[in-house]
Structures are given as structure tokens and as C-alpha cells.
């Protein structure tokens, strides 16, 4: 299976890369700084092709596809993990900041999908997974841009699932809650222990690990999920049940 993966160098994206390679997939990995995972890349050179690219430059995304070496077959799946998380209260949520957030969390995903779904790049029956967030269906103070962008991803998923169904291309979203990643480490540094405990208490199964999210992603790109499209899968240790 040939998979295009974004955000491949850290957090859920890197764990996805590891598990894809372990499952025998060939991965076209997009990231900004591959030096972070140099050792892993060295050990798995035959299964990964890397493309250093900043997805904030949405206009250049189509160029990535023209560079892919697809001589041995077209893409079977795309997993879009790249994204940013920011705590910005309403008063500081300027159009410029929201633009940046939407560029990376929403517009880059649409542009990736627009290129990926062309007949010359992906096979009929291909599968796409977008990383949204449980914040895409819930709210939190200071997260207007983030929540809005992750909710927008769900709209993209539903609409494109309908549009691409005629070629049996499936599009789904995974909505993780708080998992231990470099991104959440930064979040916890700015709040005190009692606040962290309070957030933890709201997760009946505690905070998650990246390994808790990736199996669902792999399931969704597999043939076992061939009748699933346009759906959102919440993986949050029970957080959203409250």
C-alpha cells in the first residue's frame, strides 16, 4: 500500500509513520524537519520517501504531487496529520492569526485532497483520513480558532466523502482527545497542577498516548473499512461523554 502522510515527524504523525512501515506500507512522508527522526529514516530507507515542505504555503502544495515517484503505482491512501494547536483568547484572535490557523488546519487539507483525488495520483477505492480533534465537536475557552478549524475539517470530510464516493474514495476523520505529544507538553507547561488534575479527571480513561489513536487510522485506510465514509471517530478516553 502506498500512503501519503503529512506531519510525519512528530506526535501522532510520527507514530503513524512507524506503524505504517511496520505494516509493510510504502510512505511518502511530508514534514518540516526530518532531522528529528533521522535514525528511524536511516533504518527504514527502503520504505520511506521524504519531502520537506511547509504546508502553510498552500499555493505550492500541488507541486509536491508532481514530485512523487509513482512509477510503480498510484497512491492508495492519504493521512493528513499536520496541524497546529494554539490557545488564543477571542480578544487576541485577529484575522491574521485565524488565517494562519485555517491555512494549516483546513486549507492545506483541502488542497492536499484536491490534488490527491486526481485520477493520475490515486487509485479508485483510495482512503483519506483527516486528523481533526475532539475540539471539533466541543468548545473550550481560548480555543476559538482551533475549535473552528477542527470543526471545519469535519465539513470537509462529509462533503468530500459524498463527492468522491463515485470513485469509491473514502474520506473520514479521527478526533483525538488529549494525548501525550510535544504539543500537549507545551499546553501543560502554562497551567498549574490542579488545572492539569481537573482536565485529567474529565478523561475517564486518563490521558491517551499516540499509540491509542493510530490503530483507528490504520483501520480506516484498510479494506476492512471499505463501507465507511464521511464519518468522525472520537478517540478521547471518554472525555466527550460528559
Amino acid at each position: 500500500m502506498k500512503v501519503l502522510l503529512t506531519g510525519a515527524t512528530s506526535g501522532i504523525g510520527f507514530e503513524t509513520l512507524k506503524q505504517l512501515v511496520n505494516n509493510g506500507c510504502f510512505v511518502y512522508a511530508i514534514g518540516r524537519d526530518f532531522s528529528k527522526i533521522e535514525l528511524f529514516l536511516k533504518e527504514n530507507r527502503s520504505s520511506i520517501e521524504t519531502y520537506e515542505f511547509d504546508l502553510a504555503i498552500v499555493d505550492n502544495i500541488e507541486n509536491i504531487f508532481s514530485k512523487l515517484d509513482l512509477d510503480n503505482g498510484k497512491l492508495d491512501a492519504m493521512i493528513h496529520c499536520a496541524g497546529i494547536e494554539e490557545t488564543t483568547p477571542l480578544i487576541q484572535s485577529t484575522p491574521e492569526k485565524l488565517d494562519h490557523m485555517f491555512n494549516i488546519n483546513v486549507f492545506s487539507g483541502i488542497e492536499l485532497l484536491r490534488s490527491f483525488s486526481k485520477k493520475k495520483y490515486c487509485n479508485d477505492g483510495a482512503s483519506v483520513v483527516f486528523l481533526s480533534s475532539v475540539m471539533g465537536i466541543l468548545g473550550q475557552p481560548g480555543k476559538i480558532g482551533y475549535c473552528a478549524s477542527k470543526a471545519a475539517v469535519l465539513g470537509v470530510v462529509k462533503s468530500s466523502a459524498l463527492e468522491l464516493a463515485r470513485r469509491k474514495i473514502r474520506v473520514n476523520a479521527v478526533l483525538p482527545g488529549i494525548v501525550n505529544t510535544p504539543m500537549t507538553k507545551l499546553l501543560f507547561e502554562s497551567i498549574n497542577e490542579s488545572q492539569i488534575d481537573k482536565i485529567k479527571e474529565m478523561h475517564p480513561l486518563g490521558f491517551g498516548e499516540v499509540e491509542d489513536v493510530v490503530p483507528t487510522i490504520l483501520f480506516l485506510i484498510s479494506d476492512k473499512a471499505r463501507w465507511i465514509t464521511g464519518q468522525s471517530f472520537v478517540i478521547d478516553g471518554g472525555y466527550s461523554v460528559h
Partner: protein
Amino acid sequence: MDKKSFILKLQNDLELETEINETSILKDLDEWDSMTEMVLIGLVNEEFSVRLNHDDIEKISTVDSLIEIIGFDKFD
């Protein structure tokens, strides 16, 4: 940014109804709550590229103490 402009920006962004100066105790302000903390973290990050963590917030008392935490060298 000079100290005076920073205090004005602080007053404006935190939407404080009373005037503040270097000796004002931030946590005694009627407006101080977890949202105010969040706005303050955002403001300091944006203006000075300094990320206040929980320990920094704990240490803040007066406006001057906030300026000290940000770093005197960051002000004109």
C-alpha cells in the same frame, strides 16, 4: 516597547476599568481570573516572544514583577 506603552497595552488588552501603574498588584484586580491569565500569556508571547509558564504566573505580583519576569532587556 517601552514600559509605559506596555502598561497601556496591558490595560487595554486585559480591558481593565481602573488605571494601573508599575506598583499595581495584578492579582488584586477585579478582572483577574483564568481568562485574564490566558490573555496575559498571549500578550507576552506575542510582544516579547516569551512564553510564561505556570511558575511565572505564580510569581507575578505587581506590574513591575511581570516586567522583571519578561526580562528588563526586552524593554526600551
